[in-house]
């Protein structure tokens, strides 16, 4: 059993003042997941008649991208390639203090406690992160030859679950890793390629309009990404943007 101290960000609603509240999390089984640990603490808060700590979660198996906790200053914790829900309490030692904060970015307004509004990502997808014509069903995909290297790169980019950890980790709250992955996974494939320039311009413009910061090539995003999306996609987006804007201006 682990005895821990939690420092948790509590905030009533979007407009109220937030603050750090300290909780004593005693007798936490090592086999619990991080979110189960929060469930146990919440159960105790409820029993004492308090308001439980609000946090986002859904699948609890690292595929939905809902969980969004900054653990000791690092989104999804310092363990690489996992989401917060995949984090196990055995990674902590008894006596430790754990800081739990929301994903911080101006473009992700805080709703309550540890829950933030990530609909800016949906609007970016709405600005071009799709293919606008019917591309057929499974057998049609199999009829279209795709180079192995491109298929691999597109598949790796498509692993993005849109959790927003890249934004939360970036020193500038930039959304470049998300946007570049979502653009790349379509741009690299024959179904997505015809709309590449339009997609790149649309998504980048929406990204800027949402108030995300600018990439400074520090690669914090890549380091925290639970799906280990590569910053190669960012280089690709930079290149594709230059091409798209030249095309728009001159052709």
């Amino acid at each position, binding site marked *: 059993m682990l005895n821990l101290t939690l420092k948790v960000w509590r905030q009533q609603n979007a407009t109220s003042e*937030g603050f750090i509240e300290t909780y004593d999390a005693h007798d936490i089984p090592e086999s619990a997941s991080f979110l189960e640990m929060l469930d146990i603490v919440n159960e105790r808060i409820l029993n004492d008649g308090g308001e439980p700590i609000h946090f986002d979660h859904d699948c609890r198996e690292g595929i939905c991208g809902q969980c969004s906790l900054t653990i000791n200053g*690092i989104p999804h914790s310092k363990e690489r390639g996992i989401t917060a829900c995949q984090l196990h309490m055995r990674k902590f030692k008894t006596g430790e203090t754990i800081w739990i904060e929301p994903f911080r970015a101006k473009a992700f307004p805080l709703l309550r406690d540890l829950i933030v509004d990530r609909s800016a990502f949906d609007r970016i997808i709405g600005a071009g992160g799709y293919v606008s014509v019917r591309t057929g069903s499974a057998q049609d995909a199999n009829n279209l030859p795709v180079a192995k290297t491109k298929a691999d790169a597109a598949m790796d980019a498509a692993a993005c679950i849109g959790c927003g950890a890249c934004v939360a980790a970036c020193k500038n709250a930039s959304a470049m890793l998300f946007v570049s992955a979502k653009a790349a996974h379509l741009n690299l494939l024959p179904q997505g390629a015809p709309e590449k320039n339009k997609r790149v311009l649309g998504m980048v413009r929406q990204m800027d309009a949402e108030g*995300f910061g600018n*990439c400074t090539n520090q690669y914090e995003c890549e380091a925290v990404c639970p799906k280990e999306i590569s910053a190669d996609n960012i*280089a690709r987006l*930079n290149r594709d943007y*230059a091409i798209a804007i030249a095309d728009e201006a001159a052709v």
Partner: protein
Amino acid sequence: MNLSSCSICQFWHSSIGKKLVVALTGLFLVMFLAGHLAGNLLIFQSSADFNEYAHMLHSMMHGWGVWIFRILMLVALALHVIATVQLTAANRSARATRYQKDATMVASRSSRMMIWSGLTVLVFFVFHILHYTVRVSPELKELADFDQNWAMTVKGFQNPLVSIFYIIAMALLCSHLSHGVASIFQTLGLRSRKTAGPITLLSKAYSLIIFVGFISIPISICFFGYGKEELQETEQMIEQAKSLGLDGILHEHRH
């Protein structure tokens, strides 16, 4: 063809567009530094070669060359500074509430102080221009008026405050470049997992060469007395020329 000015505005106001401006102007400044260092190192070869090099720069294209270059430098530097100051301000405001417990996984210290290393270089740059190009010090101005650029440089660096500030500025420039050079490749879309290693290495090697190369000059002059005797001889020669009333002739010869 419709290359409207509006596209350029849009480019400048977009995050990636502005970063491309930073990368391209940064690349220009990086290339300039390499050339500047190569020229400066002539100081160790001989005073004659150094003076001849300085003369060549000023007479290139009938004196137009140096001005064209100065204007290009100024434009590049201005664009670089305006863009990075704006980007940094936008980046700060993109996270209105900071983390109570902040942590870093991989970002280097240099990458996190780009604006401060950059602004120090800017202050240094202004000082450097006043010192060796405008020559606000009458002593240095006189040496330059007699076409003694080598002696002027040596004299300038004999001042320990000047040399120490120079060395500090070069250390921060080295830090700026160790992140900056590698950044150029990523911003221009030329970096990938396969090339990341060599690019980082190139960036560190380049910034180290710039650092060691530039500071070797003030260090050898200020702390090891390089060029002391020759400078004295030159100064005596100028005194003699002045006392003999030959300075007018020397000046005329120059023009």
